[in-house]
């Protein structure tokens, strides 16, 4: 009988920080330059060059740590991590070892509606390596543009318990990174990378099984698929009484399998020692306080506020909280007077569909700023504008960048709620349709027909609720 295996997963996520310049030198850190067009003597590891630390990289790392509830060390150190590889120009990576900038903390998210909190071991700063490009003919090419781009490495405790949860964890990191504005969190472009340590143990036991390290998962789906495959592979071996070999395995998405790496140097002696070219980094209590004050309301807190006090559905709350720019926009619409539920509907159904990249909402050139949307919603709330017409008005607002009140006034779209006028219209319609009027008492669903006719009669401007009431009275 197969054992009930508990899956134990720890994740290492590398986040590329979107600073202007590299972490230790002044070349641009932007993605997409021509090969080796974004390098300098320092990031090329030329003899005699020295690292100089980028303030923005430090601030991003601290804010990330604060957002994850980490302890921020007032004093931390850089260390050299040694290995030989063509994409590593100095033969060592400047990273952090003994005294990383952030310790502890947790990443919070929801898994199928249930809140989860995955503890972190640490977050540290380091520099990215260049890129090896393989070609045929027995050679490889190296591009050092990426060498020196700042990274934060987030190391979790082995608290993750399923492939699905792992993917959600990585997604939560991405959301946090984008909320803080410190990076793009784009797995396909490589600005967010994930390695997983996977092991199994009989459920109910504490001792960890042998783990394997899974690499080369470059999308959320790949994270989930790769780990699922690896779990199955390990379970099969263990059920047969075989051992798991501690090794690094690469995910091959095309074939749907993990493959052990052929390199014979699996166990690395990185020979860490404190980086002599950089004195210890101090982030004072005062500096920390300033950075803490700059944090936005975080995704999970927003979700809680939206699904709790604001009374939105979990799904809607999730959509609004997914990106900071959306959440900020929504909050501004509500702050300008629109009720939460209606505002949520408009943002989700009408704004998001049109805006393309939701981050444009934060850029200040949105055709319908938050206050303008709030104005439209208020017009519907106070019955000035019918819901149906409001959709048309919004479309005009978006394409022509006009305000709702201005459009309504210019085109005379104000809803008719005046009882007298409406009653007149109802009477005319009833008079025009005597057979339906006579059949009404036995066929109540003819109400729809009559309401429609009255709306047509009033050019769509009748207040449907009032029309309904008047017709009911007249047809009774």
């Amino acid at each position, binding site marked *: 009988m197969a054992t009930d295996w508990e899956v134990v997963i720890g994740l290492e996520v590398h986040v590329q920080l979107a600073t202007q310049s590299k972490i230790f030198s002044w070349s641009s850190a932007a993605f997409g330059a021509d090969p080796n067009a974004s390098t300098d003597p320092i990031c090329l590891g030329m003899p*005699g060059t020295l690292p*100089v630390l980028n303030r923005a990289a430090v601030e991003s790392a601290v804010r990330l740590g604060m957002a994850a509830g980490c302890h921020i060390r007032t004093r931390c150190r850089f260390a050299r991590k040694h290995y030989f590889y063509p994409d590593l*120009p100095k033969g060592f990576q400047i990273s952090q070892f003994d005294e990383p900038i952030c310790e502890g903390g947790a990443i919070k998210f929801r898994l199928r509606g249930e809140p989860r909190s995955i503890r972190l071991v640490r977050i540290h700063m380091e520099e990215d390596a260049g890129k090896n490009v393989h070609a045929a003919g027995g050679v490889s090419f190296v591009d050092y543009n990426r060498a020196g781009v700042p990274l934060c490495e987030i190391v979790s405790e082995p608290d993750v318990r399923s492939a699905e949860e792992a993917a959600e964890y990585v997604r939560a990191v991405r959301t946090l990174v984008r909320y803080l504005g410190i990076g793009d969190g784009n797995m396909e472009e490589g600005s967010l990378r994930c390695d997983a340590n996977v092991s199994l143990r009989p459920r109910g036991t504490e001792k960890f099984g042998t783990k394997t390290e899974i690499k080369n998962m470059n999308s959320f789906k790949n994270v989930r698929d790769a780990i699922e495959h690896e779990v199955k592979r390990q379970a099969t071996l263990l059920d047969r009484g075989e051992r798991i070999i501690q090794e690094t395995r690469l995910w091959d998405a095309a074939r749907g399998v993990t493959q052990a790496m052929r390199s014979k140097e699996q166990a690395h002696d990185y020979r860490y020692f404190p980086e002599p070219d950089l004195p210890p980094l101090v982030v004072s209590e005062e500096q920390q306080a300033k950075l803490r004050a700059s944090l936005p309301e975080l995704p999970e807190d927003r979700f809680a506020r939206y699904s709790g006090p604001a009374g939105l559905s979990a799904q809607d709350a999730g959509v609004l909280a997914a990106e900071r720019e959306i959440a900020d926009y929504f909050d501004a619409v509500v702050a300008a007077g629109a009720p939460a539920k209606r505002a949520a509907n408009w943002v989700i159904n009408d704004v998001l569909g049109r805006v393309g990249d939701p981050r444009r909402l934060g850029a200040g050139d949105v055709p319908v700023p938050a206050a303008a949307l709030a104005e439209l919603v208020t017009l519907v709330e106070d019955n000035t504008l019918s819901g149906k017409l409001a959709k048309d008005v919004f479309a005009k607002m978006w394409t022509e960048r006009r305000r709702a009140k201005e459009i309504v006034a210019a085109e005379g779209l104000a809803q008719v709620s005046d009882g007298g006028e409406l009653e007149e219209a109802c009477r005319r319609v009833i008079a025009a349709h005597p057979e339906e009027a006579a059949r009404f008492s036995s066929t109540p669903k003819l109400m729809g027909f009559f309401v429609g006719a009255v709306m047509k009669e009033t050019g769509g401007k009748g207040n449907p609720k009032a029309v309904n009431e008047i017709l009911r009275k007249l047809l009774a």
Partner: protein
Amino acid sequence: MEARGASALSIAEGVRSGKLRAREVTEQFLDRVARLDGGLGCYLLVDAEGARRRADAVDAAVKNGSDPGPLAGVPLGIKDIFCTKGVETTCASKILRGFVPPYESTVTARLAAAGAVALGKLNMDEFAMGSSTENSSVKPARNPWSTAHVPGGSSGGSAAATAASLCTGAIGTDTGGSIRQPASLCGVVGMKPTYGRVSRYGVIAFASSLDHPGPFGRTVEDTAALLEVMAGADPLDATSIPAPVGAYRQAARAGREGGSALKGVRLGMPAEYFQPGMDTEVEAAVRAAIEELRAAGATVVPVSLPNTKYAIATYYLICTAEASSNLARYDGVKYGYRTGEARSLEELYTRTRGEGFGAEPKRRIMLGAYVLRAGYYEAYYGKALRARRKIADDFAAAFAQCDAIVTPTSPVPAFKLGERMADPLQMYLADIFTVAPDLAGIPAISQPCGFTKAGLPIGLQTIGPALGEEICFRVAGAYESRTDWHTRLPPEVA
């Protein structure tokens, strides 16, 4: 103008006042190099074109009335460890042969901006590893006082060229004594400043926390003048000290004030540097020098630096660990030497490095890799870092009782070429008096204080507290003003 024996500042004054033309001075020195360096091996590369261009620029500045700089027209030699833009820089290693840096070291840029004329790149022990310049992959350098003897190292070319007037001053680096020891062996002045006082940007790294760029000169004031230009904070070096640069020339001159130049100055004599069994001639010369300092008004007090005996071990654990790391970048991929057809990445690395590095760098890389291994770190490297603090604390405690410490620079005068090559440990022990100030990061200067009967120079070392360059220059200036060792010239072999 008599080039042989000329001081750097005399040339600067001459050029600034219009009495000398920088171009003529440069030609004189280039001629000396061409005639005399064959027998000495000081220069790895002579940049005649570059030197002439710089000299012409200085002359043009003087001509149109703008300030040509405090070192106008001063011919200098540059240890081949400083990256010079557009000019080959090799660290005397095969693995950097042909490397032409696209950037300039901060130090050489500052010297050029001050009007100095760099004549070329000077010989050294490969990657600054050695005490005799015999580890140069190109050729050994020779001591101008006796060409069968070594000039010391690793800045052997810098010391020898200054002594032989193949330049009027030079720059080098001191990691375990590599400025002071060759200065001592060649009878010139050599200064290792406080760690971080002079920028390391563009200085090819041997041991990052121990490398100190510094000047050589024929006189104390010349050396002070060079340091004034070299020193100061650098945004390109995160370990460079922000404190303002001191008035070093002034300090050197203050020592010349006649009879009571050093009144009130307490000089410490550490027992550990005057052990029985010392070379008798060295001991005699240094003790006589200390008497001279006493006559200049100083008080001499005994001090103790009890952890001196651990300094060499501490040094060789730290410097090799850092060196093994700093030399990991030499792999044939981005610059320098590359092995012939390599069939795999591993072959590319191991053969490039095996063929490109000499024996001493290989030895130190191996030792460094060993002491940094997981499991060995605490026992070796970690231990050495703590021993280092104890050595630094020894000095701090001593400086509570004295203003400067005086010792011999080298336990022995220059040894013969080949004499110490068989046993690396023997070579390492030559650093015994120079190593501790490197570990502590405190300033120290060496100056000539006598000659052996065989005519080989002997050096006196003055050590100061952190950022105490002024006291070093003052003491050295006082000693120099009362003696004439610095005026002696080595024989000229055309």
